[in-house]
């Protein structure tokens, strides 16, 4: 059936090709856009999919914000469209609210930031930046993408099953998550998206190790590739643990084996929780075991979300400061250190879980050490722009914005690393502020920087610069005004994931702050439409991009303006590191990796 469709479509495409006097044999629409094995097409598929999910997740966030600012009041316009099982008179019901917080985080983490960072960027950048034609395993690559929409649909299907979708938070802690169809779908979806991540990761590691262009040593690779490479290692080693955890939760949900469910638990109706442990021969399950295995993946996952972005930002900063990366090797070692430490610090998410306090001390010390490589990176970025020649293009603005917000997110992380302080701020809005400073202010600004930076190579068109700048400025301002006050209500004790904070006396004074946050959250949400409009408009009407619009040094700019299958139209040999900006060897202020030394000499200025 599949094959029949393929050949049928294929025949059509050939006919069309003849009509339009195409020179080359044109693959069918399905082969070209749906089941393409070209890494650039797969990158675009990842990009569009996660852009779509970004809008979905953003909409969920605005629902949440509306409820916190104006609890019990109907959602404007949309409220009346939603079914009564979710809203009453247009106002969000508590059950729907917990589904929203769960789905907002699930979508944003598993279907926006991870696919964007390790799907879109890794796919687009790795082969181009190491000077090769495609990934090592193109078909595996295609499978890696197609698992994402399947997983997304599986999780989204939860909204249409009895009892609604998953509602136990994105961390899905049992026993709350151990019953209900929505939770089972969540577990299946996460397993699938994890499989996609593993397939992607093994492909990226192989590609980087095996397919580098002639002359390119590991230490000639751009920071983006380094970061993506280390991230891919994290993906392949961390994700399977989450997969195993998900399988065990599935066994608990479907067969009630009692792996995470202790003996004799009550359900909310007062009955006994269905559980192998209750029939007499069973043992007590351990809810904390889920948390250990979950965070053993999900802490490295935090770095899966941020490391690629750190690489992208390094490249963007160097290019637009027209200056080599300060401390290239130190940056690489810092990434390695973060990745290694990332695997031994998961317990700081569990200071309150009731685990042994000795383990708490251990995790506290290991976690605080992770601040060191992070600060090395910050200092090196500052060193990079020091005595530079900074051009304020949109990608660079986003990269600079990244540094500014990431410092804040990193420092608020120190509070969480310290156990006794975490006791108080755990599960409050301080954590929410932190995660958004890291994942929105950090990852998303870096993603914007990357999208603008590689847009010309991806689509062969230039994006609209003024619209890009406007998008950055509005996003940066509204972002800070939206998320910074969350630190304050967090210190005030405002819990996260609560449908109506004002049942508590001590939270009542925070309603004006919540309204303030909501106003800027709405503005922030709408500011993203500028980005989407800019991208769509520029793909259609943008000015054609030159081959190397940023006068950058890395190999992707050696490829044609809009590279086709196979990427390069010239042989690629690498002669030097990726950041030879303002080199005295060259008359120009940049010296690409692929220029032959003999060729450079022709334009060399007299050495002083």
């Amino acid at each position, binding site marked *: 059936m599949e094959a029949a469709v393929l050949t049928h479509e294929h025949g059509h495409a050939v006919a069309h090709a003849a009509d339009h006097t195409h020179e080359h044999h044109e693959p069918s629409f399905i082969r070209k856009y749906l089941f393409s094995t070209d890494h650039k097409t797969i990158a675009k598929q990842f990009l569009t999919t996660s852009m779509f999910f970004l809008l979905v997740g953003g909409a969920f966030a605005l629902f949440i914000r509306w409820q916190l600012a104006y609890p019990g009041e109907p959602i404007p316009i949309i409220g009346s469209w939603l079914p009564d099982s979710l809203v009453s008179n247009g106002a969000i019901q508590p059950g729907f609210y917990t589904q929203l917080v769960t789905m907002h985080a699930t979508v944003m983490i598993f279907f926006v930031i991870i696919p964007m960072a390790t799907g879109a960027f890794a796919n687009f950048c790795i082969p181009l930046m190491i*000077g*090769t*034609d495609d990934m*090592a*395993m193109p078909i*595996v690559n295609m499978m890696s993408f197609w698992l994402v929409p399947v997983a997304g649909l599986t999780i989204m299907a939860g909204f249409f099953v009895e009892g609604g979708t998953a509602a136990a938070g994105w961390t899905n802690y049992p026993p709350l998550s151990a019953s209900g169809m929505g939770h089972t779908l969540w577990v299946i979806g996460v397993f699938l998206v994890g499989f996609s991540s*593993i397939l992607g*990761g*093994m*492909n990226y*590691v*192989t590609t980087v*190790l*095996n*397919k*580098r*262009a*002639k002359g390119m040593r590991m230490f000639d690779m751009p920071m983006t590739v380094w970061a993506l490479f280390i991230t891919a290692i994290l993906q*392949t*080693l*961390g*994700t*399977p*643990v*989450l*997969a*195993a*955890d998900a*399988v*065990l939760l599935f*066994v*608990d949900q479907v*067969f*009630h*084996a*009692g*792996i995470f469910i202790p003996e004799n638990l009550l359900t909310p109706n007062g009955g006994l929780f269905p559980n*192998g*442990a209750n*029939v007499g*021969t*069973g*043992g*007590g*399950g*351990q809810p904390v*075991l889920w948390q*250990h*295995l979950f965070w053993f993946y999900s802490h490295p996952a935090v770095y899966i979300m941020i490391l690629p972005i750190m690489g992208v930002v390094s490249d963007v900063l160097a290019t637009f400061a027209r200056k080599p990366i300060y401390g290239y090797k130190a940056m690489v070692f810092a990434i390695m250190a973060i990745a290694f430490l990332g695997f031994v610090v998961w317990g700081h998410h569990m200071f309150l879980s009731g685990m042994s306090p000795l383990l708490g001390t251990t995790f506290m010390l290991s976690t605080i050490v992770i601040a060191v490589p992070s600060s090395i990176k910050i200092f090196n970025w500052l060193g990079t722009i020091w005595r530079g020649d900074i051009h304020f293009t949109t990608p660079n603005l986003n990269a600079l914005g990244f540094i500014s917000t990431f410092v804040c997110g990193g420092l608020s992380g120190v509070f969480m690393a310290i156990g006794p302080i975490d006791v108080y701020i755990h599960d409050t809005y301080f954590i929410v502020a932190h995660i958004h400073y890291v994942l929105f202010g950090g990852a998303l600004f870096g993603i914007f920087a990357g999208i603008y930076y590689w847009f010309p190579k991806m689509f062969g068109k230039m994006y609209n610069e003024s619209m890009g700048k406007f998008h950055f400025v509005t996003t940066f301002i509204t972002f800070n005004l939206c998320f910074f006050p969350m630190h304050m209500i967090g210190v005030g004790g405002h819990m996260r994931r609560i449908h109506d904070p004002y049942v508590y006396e001590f939270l009542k004074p925070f309603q004006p702050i919540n309204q303030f946050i909501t106003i800027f959250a709405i503005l922030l949400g709408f500011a993203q439409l500028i980005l989407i409009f800019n991208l769509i408009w520029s793909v259609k009407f943008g000015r054609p991009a030159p081959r190397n619009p940023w006068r950058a040094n890395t190999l992707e700019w050696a490829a044609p303006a809009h590279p086709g299958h*196979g*990427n*390069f*139209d*010239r*042989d*690629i040999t690498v002669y030097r590191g990726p950041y030879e900006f303002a080199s005295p060897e060259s008359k120009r202020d940049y010296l690409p990796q692929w220029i032959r030394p003999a060729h450079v000499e022709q334009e060399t200025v007299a050495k002083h």
Partner: protein
Amino acid sequence: MSALSLAHEPVTGIRHGKLGMWIFLASEVMFFSGFFTAFIILRNANLSVFAHGATELNWPLAALNTVNLIVSSLTMAMSILSLENGDKGKFQLYLGITFLCACGFLVIKYIEYTTKFSHGIYPGTSSFFGLYFTMTGFHAIHVIGGMIPIGWMLAKSFTKRGYADTGRVEILGLYWHFVDLVWIFLFPVLYLIF
């Protein structure tokens, strides 16, 4: 365009597929690590339940399966060797034995499972059996996952063109030995020691 020399020998000297397979196996080790960690923690918390559960299992059948997998591992290694020597007949023979061993493994597994079900033992019976069915079940899925390419290569080798991609058979071999490896740990941990 075709004169481009972008496609060159793998930098590490290890074929893409083989390198990818090793990374995948590293990933698989972590996957089973998750199960084994859960097993260790729950076993320590519920020693008597686990000890009782293990006595319900049929260890002679599992021992037979162990032998089964060891034989298949040997024949898999020998089949690669035969193909490298160009001995098509022996390649088919050894790969055939490997396939048969895998079938035998699944048949024995089927007998084990159905006996458990007939005694009223299901994954929900206790956390021990939850883990037992999960771990052996995922191992069995891996066996099936290995049988598909084994069967395909075997079928291909009987066609006119034959099958001569030693690199691919070697990659498949790595996977197959890994499946054996997992069983080497599952056998004592689930059936023997408690």
